[in-house]
């Protein structure tokens, strides 16, 4: 290797190092900008949600109870703003990386953009499922207690499980995650529950079924607690 070759190699090396350094600095700037925007989104959204009474709305809908049951003890506005902050971070990061013409980033961006609608739909389905499961389970619990039915807690838990199962299955279907397995698992779970109920009501619990139907389709028996009183 002569002196000219060494010089050329060093020049090329220098250019590449400079280019990589610039790209790295730009990438770091993009990361910083993404983190900053994500953090700002989280802060602003958190304040807006708290000021608009989002937490009390979530409490009334039962979402807070469901979240606590799942071990999430922070206010719902905290989770919502954190989620939005991370979404902004990744979107800005991928967009920034794409603008640097990194082939892998282009591919990731393309896939992410295609995935976003399904992802948002799945999240919405899950949120609705959680809210509705809480509402339905609580309604069943209170109505069963007032009817004096001792299986109130079990009925309520079953309703919650069924609604949540349905919501999770629908969300996974949206995301196209192991579709055939999800459909099969869902069919097995729901079919199993329906079969168990049919057996329980038809055979083992026929007296309960009779009482239940009687209490809902016929006037309450004279021995309903307090039936002898004219309450008004």
């Amino acid at each position, binding site marked *: 290797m002569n002196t000219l070759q060494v010089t050329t190699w060093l020049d090329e090396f220098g250019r590449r190092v400079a280019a990589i350094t610039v790209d790295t600095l730009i990438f770091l700037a993009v990361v910083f900008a993404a983190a900053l925007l994500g953090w700002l989104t989280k802060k602003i959204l958190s304040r807006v949600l708290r000021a608009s*009474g989002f937490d*009390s*709305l979530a*409490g*009334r809908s039962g979402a807070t*109870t469901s979240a606590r049951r799942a071990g999430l003890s922070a206010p719902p506005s905290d989770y919502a703003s954190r989620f939005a902050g991370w979404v902004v971070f990744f979107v800005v990061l991928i967009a920034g990386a794409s603008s640097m013409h990194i082939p892998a980033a282009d591919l990731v961006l393309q896939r992410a953009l295609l995935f976003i609608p399904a992802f948002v739909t799945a999240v919405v389905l899950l949120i609705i499922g959680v809210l509705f499961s809480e*509402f339905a389970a*609580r*309604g069943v*619990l*209170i*109505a069963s*207690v*007032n009817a*004096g039915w*001792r299986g*109130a*807690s079990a009925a309520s838990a079953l309703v919650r499980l069924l609604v949540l199962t349905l919501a999770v299955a629908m969300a996974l279907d949206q995301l196209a995650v192991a579709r055939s397995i999800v459909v099969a698992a869902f069919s097995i779970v729901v079919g199993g529950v329906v079969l168990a109920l049919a057996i329980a009501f038809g055979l083992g619990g026929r007296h309960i079924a009779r009482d239940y139907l009687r209490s809902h389709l016929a*006037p*309450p028996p*004279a*021995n*309903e*607690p*307090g*039936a*002898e*009183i*004219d*309450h*008004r």
Partner: protein
Amino acid sequence: MRVAAADQSIEDVVAATGGADLVVGIPSYNNGKTIGHVAATAVHGLSTFFAGRPALVLNSDGGSADGTSTAMVAAGSAACESLDETHRRWIRIESMRYRGPSGKGSAFRDIFEVAERVNAVAVVVLDADLRSVSPEWIDRLASPIVSGRFDFVTPLYKRHKFDGTITNNIIYPMTNALFGGDIRQPIGGDFGVGTPLVRAYVADTVWETDVARFGVDIWMTTTALVNGFRVAQAHLGAKVHDPKDPGQHLAKMLVEVVGTWFDLVERYSQAWANGDGSAPAAPRLGSEPASDVTHVNVNVDSLLDQFRFGVETLTPIYASVLPAALVERFGAISAGAGAMPFDDSTWARTVYAFALAYRRRALPVQQLLSSLTPLYLGRVASFVIANGNSSEEAAEKQVQQLARVFRSLCPDFATEWRAERSPQ
């Protein structure tokens, strides 16, 4: 006397009547077996106590399928026929089909509208299923108004000490604490109403709400108290009516009555939340007629069992909407198996806490109010245990004591109410 066909409109009735000093309104739906007696009694009451004054006995029906209107018209006309000519020509019998949502409130609305348009001085409304109504009821409900001394007359029934438990434990003490008036039967069902109040009722905008369906009684009383109308109470003796609807579950009844009541508490919060809107006690007119009440046997074990089961199962729900100390107290009372009473203070705090939870819509309204049922049964059980051997008078003193407790806790309730932000 004129006997009209059933299913008329308001216009038909007004045109046929022309003018009437008194209107006796009878709302109905499938009361064919009992309405005849009420209509005939109304005719006798009018002819006995208001002879010579033009009067209208008006049935406002919800589309009965059992010939209610026909039975009313037939019985009313037969009663008129039994009068001498000078009396019978002043009394008209009419029946019409009311408009709007199905319910007693819609029936009342059309009765009031007819009364306003025929320039009635006083309106008396009577339940169509009454068996104990007497001609004196017309006198006692209408005379204080015709004399110009009062605008609204509520009934004072003689009831068994264990009857009227929603009235005794919720509606009476809370109405009295918030709005004053000391109205013992705010949701009695039979009332006398004067012209100014009739106009106020007709002009109100509540007729498409739950008031039209099932909350008209408490709405009428509260509206009269809040707006400064002169209110009196008339002794009517025992109220005997058809056995209550066996299809009417307690939980549903509680949701309807208490839901309407909490709506009114909200609607008229300006009148009570500052502590300056209390009406003077309404005088109790006349003497109590001699009458026997039907004895009520209560199965306390069943009430306590339902209370315990409710507290045991619904505690997580109570904990999410009620103060922790109150929920702990439910647990202690429930564990006492009847030995520890659901005392007045705990009960008043419970009702107020539910009213606050209702205001902030802590749960869907139907679920929130339904969850009150087991606690209510626990309170009723305590009352029955405490008054099992008491006289009617002693039991009434207990109710008055509860009313005092509600009043003493009302300032705290008002403070919390003002601090609470409405979800709207």
